């Protein structure tokens, strides 16, 4: 069942930055890009690096370990060595709080 989880506050993530949030067993990255917020899985699909240590630029997260790149909005793997897309999660803002939906 899908549930919404409060993960952060809009003031807690700078523009072009990312934070890591753990919800139960799931490691998430929550991003602030062009005034909007997005959420993806927090672990790189190549060799399990923590994407929260990566670099956000032009709506793309670059993995800290081998510079593989993912589109933050769609999770699409953009360049080697990443080949498997990241899972993305619905995000909503209520009263300046960031909520992420997890589950089927």
């Amino acid at each position, binding site marked *: 069942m899908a549930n919404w989880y409060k993960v952060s506050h809009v003031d807690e993530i700078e523009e072009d930055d990312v934070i890591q949030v753990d919800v139960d067993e799931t490691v998430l990255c929550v991003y602030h890009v062009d005034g909007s917020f997005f959420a993806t899985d927090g672990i790189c699909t190549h060799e399990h690096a923590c994407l929260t240590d*990566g670099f956000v*630029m032009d709506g793309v997260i*670059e993995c800290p*370990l*081998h*510079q593989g790149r993912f589109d933050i909005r769609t999770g699409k793997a*953009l360049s*080697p060595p990443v*080949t498997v897309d990241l899972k993305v999660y619905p995000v909503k803002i209520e009263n300046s709080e960031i909520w992420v939906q997890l589950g089927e």
Partner: protein
Amino acid sequence: MTIMEQAPLKAFGQEYVLTKKDYKPYLKRSNKHGLIRFGVHMGLIAVAAGLVSVTLGTWWIVPVMAVYAILLAFLFAPVHECSHGTTFRNRRLNEVIFWIVCLIYMVPPTFFRYAHATHHTYTQIRGWDPDMLPERMTASAYIKFVLGFTFWQRNIKWFLFHPFGKIDPTQRYFLPQSEIPRVVREARIIFMIYAGIAGVSIVFNPWIPLIYWVIPRLVGEPFMRWMRISEHGECEENGDLRENTRTTYTSGIIRYLFWEMPYHAEHHLCPMVPFHALGRLHEKFGHKLHAVGDGYMSINKDVYVKAKQKQGVTWDNPTSSVHQPVSQEFS
């Protein structure tokens, strides 16, 4: 469990030298820095090629060819930088230049990228790092390396076998299954380009590619091997990047031509940082590095003497208990 998850250890150390907040200002990408460095580098190569053409048939060709060959060998630097995707802000430009320099330098782009990524993950972890010096390195193994035998032996194998889908089983572990068709496709394209160059030159003038490309690549590669041995040679065989990777003090000219790669420990600790910011990174945490070398000559002397005496780190750490998925080669 995948084969990569069986590794005993991964390289680490960034957390000891920099916080994430400190790291951010160094990450900025720019097209300008990449274009200037690449333009100057290719400009110097063009000038040297011109000098080769006017000194052909005289004794001057010897020093001129040496300089030209060394400038071509330094193209390893943009190969390496582009494999990280950090040369330019514009990723497409990065990939185009990556292809061009890989073709000249004679390495296959995607395969190199995966091998190099694995070198970063498992730096100096024997059995997992595909770029390590051989175990129990002897003086003759050192000489073989520096002369480029190992480099050419391996690269020729790549170029001859990858187009037929034959990838060395000991190197498959770092290549995702889904990327094998891409590696094979690239190898076929490169094979056809090289065959085309060979065909055209046989018809018109076989000396041109030999004089301006093949011979200088053979002559220049030992210089690059000699420099690159300093990056990890006689550094600790453990995962700590402050100890297992060396920054080498050298002249500003060498740093410029090598695209700041003498700051090698800084690069391994912060691989997302583009080449032009590595000097600033050195100012920030250079004092925290354990492996810093004073010039390529003295490092090579140390590596060679230890190899000759059958001593040093490659002799100290018998690793028979470690899983050995890779042939120990130096890229």
